[in-house]
């Protein structure tokens, strides 16, 4: 079994502040200082990347108001991850940094230039999580009445990504000649106008800075629906999806790899990562006790879970009776997420609690959790796990000081970075 990859799924937002181990993050997170220390710890544990998800709305779907969203700080406050990326890049030297930007709201030329600059500053370690955004509320903040239909959003996104890649290619790799004798800094014949006029986007180009060190920053994606998977198969270098039963994980991976082959890409060119939150303690029974505490139902958990699912599907779950069976539900937002949610329980209450606990799959001491993860990866075939959870030092320490060394001893994950750029490390195995 070759090694698998590790990444972390988080955002530029408040870590859960109201609990025992909330050290100084409550004060440090708005400036990004808390995230800097956390990312250094991930680099010490040789993580492939940190992924900063994003959304641009205060959700007021649940109960028709933003009370619950703001009470727990679910979807806001959330800061712009593109301004955290340079700070993380300056404090690290090997780990990849993926920031989210929406193809539905950013002008293509602006996004292409922003990520090209970030890739220079990060010396070839930047990634772009290409999302189409899924909430009308977000669209209304950007001057639109609502989002285009789900599949059309992906058609627009396909053209958007092609245009951005062409803009990154508008400077040839060796355009930057630095010829002191003839006083030529850049050979102008190696910089090309694009003049792209497409169905949805237009841009003359070129960019006004050098080609990014990686050529193309790493593209990340989270497509679950068939159209989303097709988009990912064509464009993504890494793909994230919810964990779950190994059989479902394997089915998802095989489907994406098949689509990649159809799109003429080498299936190994995209690393599929499964989201999870390991529960660990010094001894097995302590870990089981801890897992039981974490999985326990509570009013707060029910409220936050229902508010979450309402926000991403734009269905007000407060209007449903919590204990009667689901009727047919549909959304223009996260179609797969809604499908998974309804599979987890027959009533909103059941499904909400199960959905909130979905990430707690691997429980035990660091060694036993390492064993469990190794077995699942062997069965599924790859490519890695995306850890998510509170970025406070307590939980992060359990991963970087406990789980990762146990995985390294079993040679399931890397113990050192062999390359300098994010893309080379990602595609090393």
């Amino acid at each position, binding site marked *: 079994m070759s090694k698998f990859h590790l990444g972390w799924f988080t955002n530029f937002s408040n870590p859960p502040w109201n609990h025992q*181990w909330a*050290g100084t993050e409550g004060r440090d997170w708005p400036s990004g200082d808390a995230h800097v220390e956390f990312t250094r710890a991930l680099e010490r*544990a040789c993580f492939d990347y940190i992924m900063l998800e994003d959304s641009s709305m205060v959700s007021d779907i649940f109960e028709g108001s933003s009370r619950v969203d703001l009470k727990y700080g679910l979807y806001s406050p959330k800061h712009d991850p593109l301004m955290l990326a340079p700070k993380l890049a300056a404090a690290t030297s090997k780990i990849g940094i993926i920031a989210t930007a929406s193809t539905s709201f950013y002008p293509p030329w602006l996004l292409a230039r922003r990520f090209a600059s970030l890739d220079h500053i990060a010396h070839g370690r930047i990634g772009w999580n290409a999302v189409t955004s899924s909430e009308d509320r977000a669209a209304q903040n950007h001057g639109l009445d609502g989002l285009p239909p789900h599949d059309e959003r992906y058609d627009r996104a396909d053209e958007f990504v092609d245009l951005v890649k062409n803009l990154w290619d508008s400077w040839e790799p060796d355009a930057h000649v630095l010829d002191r004798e003839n006083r030529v800094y850049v050979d102008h014949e190696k910089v090309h106008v694009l003049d792209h006029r497409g169905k949805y986007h237009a841009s003359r180009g070129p960019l006004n800075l050098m080609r990014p060190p990686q050529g193309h920053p790493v593209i990340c994606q989270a497509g679950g629906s068939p159209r989303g998977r097709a988009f990912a198969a064509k464009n993504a270098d890494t793909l994230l999806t919810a964990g779950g039963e190994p059989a479902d994980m394997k089915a998802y991976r095989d489907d994406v790899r098949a689509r990649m082959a159809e799109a003429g890409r080498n299936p190994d060119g995209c690393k599929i990562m499964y989201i999870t939150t390991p529960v660990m303690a010094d001894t097995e029974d302590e870990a089981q006790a801890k897992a039981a505490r974490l999985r326990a139902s509570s009013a707060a958990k029910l409220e936050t879970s229902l508010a979450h699912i309402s926000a991403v599907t734009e269905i007000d779950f407060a209007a449903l009776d919590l204990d009667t069976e689901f009727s047919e539900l549909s959304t223009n937002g996260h179609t797969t997420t809604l499908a998974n949610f309804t599979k987890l329980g027959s009533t909103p209450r059941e499904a909400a609690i199960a959905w909130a606990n979905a990430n707690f799959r691997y429980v035990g001491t660091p060694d036993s959790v390492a064993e469990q993860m190794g077995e699942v990866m062997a069965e599924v075939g790859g490519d890695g796990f995306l850890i998510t959870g509170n970025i406070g*030092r307590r939980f992060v320490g359990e991963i970087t*000081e*406990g789980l990762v060394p146990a995985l390294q001893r079993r040679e399931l994950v890397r113990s050192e970075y062999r390359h300098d750029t994010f893309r080379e490390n990602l595609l090393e195995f």
Partner: protein
Amino acid sequence: MSFVTGWFASYLVPDWSGPWAGDSGTSWADGSFVIDSVRDLEKAGVDLLMLEDISYLADIVGGTFEAELRVNARAPKGDPLPLIGRLAAQTSTIGLIATASSTFYPADLLARTFSTLQGLSGGRAGWNVVTSTGDRAAQNFGMDVLPDHATRYAHAAEVLAETHAAWGEDRPVICQAGASAGGIALAGRYADVVVASPDGVDAMRSYRDSIRAAAVDAGRDPDDVHVLYMVTPLIGETEELAAEYAQRWYAPTDAALWRRIVQLSGDIDYSAFDMDAPLPDDVETQGSRSILANLRRVAGDRPMREVLTTQRAQSVRLIGTAKSVADQMEQVVAEVGGDGFLIAGGGGGVLTRRYVHEITDGLMPELRRRGLAGLGSGSDLRSRLQSHREVGVPA
């Protein structure tokens, strides 16, 4: 009454084999373990760091290096000065006290060393004065045997006088840990910080009184000396979890016995004694006289195994949630009269980043919220120590 908090650190291999050891077994030597921990402690409001040191690898226990290199209570350990130099660049407010021997270092080297650190750290430098223990140390510096206790302290006094003359106004903080009569007198004359682990509140109060009396004898204001007591707080999310944590921490295991034997064996091989009998009466040492005296006082006629597995270099046990430990600390300071705590995390072969974060993210936020500690101010170390007299709830 607000009190001083310090961190007792070593440039020494931490826990390298436990469940939370991480990669520390290999990465400790590049300094990252200490540097990362000290930056977190500084952000959490801890006032100072005391980096201890010894300059020998002992083959006293069992006549070989085997025990030292298995138990790792004292070795392998790097020279603290370059590491403190690095910390001066990578921290901005925490006090930096480094250990150096007055017996082995020439006075002019000591004066130069600590005035350079004072400049680099913007006035946060401190010198932990030790006279060293163990013939093995002496043999690394051209001597056959360690000078006797009285000679070492007399020489220390000369060195301190000479260095203070060289520093004039901008002198670093002086720290001392000697518990013997000679040590206390010297501390009275020069020390800004005194570190000790007298056992129990009464011994803590009488020790502090003796230090303050020595300061008055030397014509100094007793409030210029800050006595810090060694403790190892054990923080749990609930009282019950904390109790389980403490039960594991203080369990009388073989490992705990061997740690104590190695720590005590400056010149005497304590492993040679019968562990199920009390300490024989005819044992003598030129090394750390106070360690032997303290051991004899505590041991009484109890068998060595019981004494050694329960004795820890700490003044009081602090166990519970962050809230209850903060209460206990507040109460101890009220009863003893002052001045603060030097927190140790188990030392070589035991300390983990996880323990450091229990202090920075569990205990310190609670102490800060209640104005008990972690609110020190002032750019240089001496004014920061003084600021504790004014800050906080009056006693």
